[in-house]
């Protein structure tokens, strides 16, 4: 297997986040939250259909991890993907218009909530089959190693997905071939209505790599700074050619699994407790205020700016026309001329 070769760029070391970075994280998390709330509303109005899995509560994970990535690093995830796309720099307009199934969407309306991609942003989906992204992400890492770049692939997946067999087949190959992939397990405690304890013999998911010699650690996934710190280490390790790493992000989803959810598998108090005491956005807000990095007024401005972006994307997603009927027949195969 080719090691790091000439193709590698000089990377700036991941620095301690400065005031501007922190404000940026706050803004990015807030954008995801407001975006998802809006998506929920549009769903309620019938403008979005099918499955729609909201990321509310988990914002710190993707914002923290993405904050240390370089543009040529790749990202892949499952169907709970709106936050990942926004954090990867994809536009709110393009994502929202895909949710409404319109021409202006990232897949011109053909993919929908669960299947969205951006070559430009190295975002490789958006996958509806639980666990599929893990070997796929490992393959992206393989391509990096093969080409001799030092790009890293981040493969995000859930606690439920971590029980799929293909995850372990991928782990083995990734470790065997020292592939530059970081596995980010977003442990939000539930897979649909099944709590982790009811589905997993080993509930400490960061240990799932042990028999493949993949080290792992548990991270407070509600603390964007802790996430960033852990991700920086894991990504650097992968970049240096030392192989895969597992980050188990302890996080929580506030909303139902998808839009319809019986909500009987956990108590309202449990959800409320996390919202009140561990909310990633509120926690960072407090830090920003305590350190006097921002004033309440600054925060209001950020809120207004974010709302503006979200409202604009919602408007765009409604104004954008449905795809041309001829689109039905395009993109099935690459047409060679």
């Amino acid at each position, binding site marked *: 297997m080719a090691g790091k070769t000439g193709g590698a760029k000089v990377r700036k070391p991941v620095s301690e986040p400065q005031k501007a970075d922190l404000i940026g994280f706050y803004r990015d998390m807030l954008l995801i939250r407001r975006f998802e709330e809006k998506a929920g509303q549009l769903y309620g109005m019938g403008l979005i*259909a*099918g*499955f729609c899995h909201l990321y509310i509560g988990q914002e710190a994970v993707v914002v923290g991890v993405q904050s240390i990535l370089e543009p040529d690093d790749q990202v892949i995830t499952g169907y709970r993907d709106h936050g990942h796309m926004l954090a990867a720099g994809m536009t709110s307009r393009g994502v929202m218009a*895909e949710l409404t*199934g*319109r021409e202006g969407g990232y*897949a*011109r*309306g*053909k*993919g*929908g*909530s*669960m*299947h969205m991609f951006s070559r430009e942003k190295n975002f490789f989906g958006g*996958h*509806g*089959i*639980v*666990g599929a992204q893990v070997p796929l992400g490992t393959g992206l890492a393989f391509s990096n190693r093969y080409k001799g770049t030092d790009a890293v692939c981040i493969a995000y997946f859930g606690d*439920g*997905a971590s*029980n*799929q*067999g*293909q995850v372990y087949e991928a782990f083995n190959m990734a470790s065997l071939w020292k592939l530059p992939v970081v596995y980010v397990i977003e442990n939000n405690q539930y*897979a*649909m*209505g*099944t709590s982790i304890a*009811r*589905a*997993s013999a080993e509930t400490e998911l960061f240990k799932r790599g042990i028999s493949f010699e993949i080290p792992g650690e548990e991270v407070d996934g509600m603390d964007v700074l802790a996430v960033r710190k852990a991700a920086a280490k894991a990504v650097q390790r992968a970049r240096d050619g030392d192989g895969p790493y597992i980050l188990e992000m302890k996080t929580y989803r506030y909303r139902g699994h998808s839009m319809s959810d*019986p909500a*009987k*598998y956990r108590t309202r108090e449990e959800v409320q407790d996390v919202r009140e005491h561990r909310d990633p956005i509120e926690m960072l807000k407090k830090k920003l205020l305590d350190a006097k990095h921002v004033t309440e007024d600054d925060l209001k401005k950020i809120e207004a700016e974010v709302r503006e972006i979200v409202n604009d994307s919602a408007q765009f997603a409604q104004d954008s026309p*449905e*795809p041309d*009927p001829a*689109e*039905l*027949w395009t993109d*099935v195969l690459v047409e060679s001329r």
Partner: protein
Amino acid sequence: MTDILMPALSPTMEEGKLAKWLVKEGDTVKPGDVIAEIETDKATMEVEAVDEGVISKLMVEAGTEGVKVNAIIAQLSAEGEAPKPKANGKAKAAKVDAPPQAVAETPAVEAKAKNDGHRLRAPEQKVAAAEGLHDPTLPEGVTYKKTAVRDALRDAIAEEMRRDERVFLMGEEVGQYQGAYKVSRGLLEEFGDRRVIDTPITEYGFAGLGVGAAFGGLRPIVEFMTFNFAMQAIDHIINSAAKTLYMSGGQMGCPIVFRGPNGAASRVGAQHSQDYSAWYGHVPGLKVLAPYDAADAKGLLKAAIRDPNPVVFLEHELMYGVEFDVPEVEDFVLPIGKARIRREGTDVTLVAHSRMVKFALDAAEELAGIGIEAEVIDLRSLRPLDTETVIESVKKTNRIVCCEEGWRFFGVGAEIAAAVVEHAFDYLDAPPLRVAQKDVPLPYAANLERLSLPNAQDIVEAAKKVCYRETE
């Protein structure tokens, strides 16, 4: 408990005389022990036990004439095989008076013919043997109950679980969550978590585990949250479940049901919207059912659970909430392999299964308005496929439109069209036409999804075409 079935002496034998029992209730038998003698007008045959166990019940008296092939003639309880009911006594003893099913099953006995016992030729496969398969005649004055398809399925599972201790249900969210589509509502409460089992998200694993459990003498019902996810497990469905009986020379059957919603739901995109009818229909060693209404869902699922073979049972998410009349009879079991004529007509045959039946019926209604009387055949069973009913219909109508929700290429319609051309070529007044999904992955956008999926209008147009009527 193993059912010993009336064996067939030849592919054409439908019934025979149970001449003599060589064992009595309570006797212990080993594989190879001759337990009975059977006669037809042509031959006498000894029936051997294939399993070890105790003859728990003789269900047919010696000397009885006209015993239908595959009727249950005795029951064998294999010690150590059937799990003993738990002390809580919830599980009732299996009911033994299952109606005879004239179904092409593997008999639980080995047939050794004394006279013309040679069976070197493959059974005649010219036209599938739907002959002799009939829905049970319902008692006069039978009442019906409006039942949603999901509840009919649930009732079927519950009834079979009460009847047979070996039956259990396993899958993602089938227990505490009551089923992702609420098909298993109430089952955990009634049967407990020993028999209603929530699995992790690991389709390949639990499908394989289910097959192993079937090898071990249990009767698993494996639910896939949708059949899209069964693609993770298709290796076990085909390589392990479908082929083992054959590979083991008949020793190791796999009585298992794989069930769940199949086909397109609504706006869930390409990875969650696929019709697997043709995929599974392709595979020898499987039975494949795809009912349309609630009564068929119930009667066929019960038959599937009792069947000694692996059965793929394709449901439809968009049908779960639809209510139909279900006859209120004690034990409603339908034959596997028999189509249902849902509407009689003389001008064109419309063949469909699962949700497409609705579109075919709607189309027939519209066609009647312009003087075309369509006959609508609901296949119900894709394997075995009741080609006979289809061909008989085409002989009358001389025209056929095959409707399916999945892709046309190598599809169910292709199979039926080929059979019709093969067996009723001279009767055809027009080439068979197919209505199917457009040959693209299912798009998410509302307008594209509408364009992609087949509907009643497509069927009307195709029917007009084969009738050489002006089309739009």
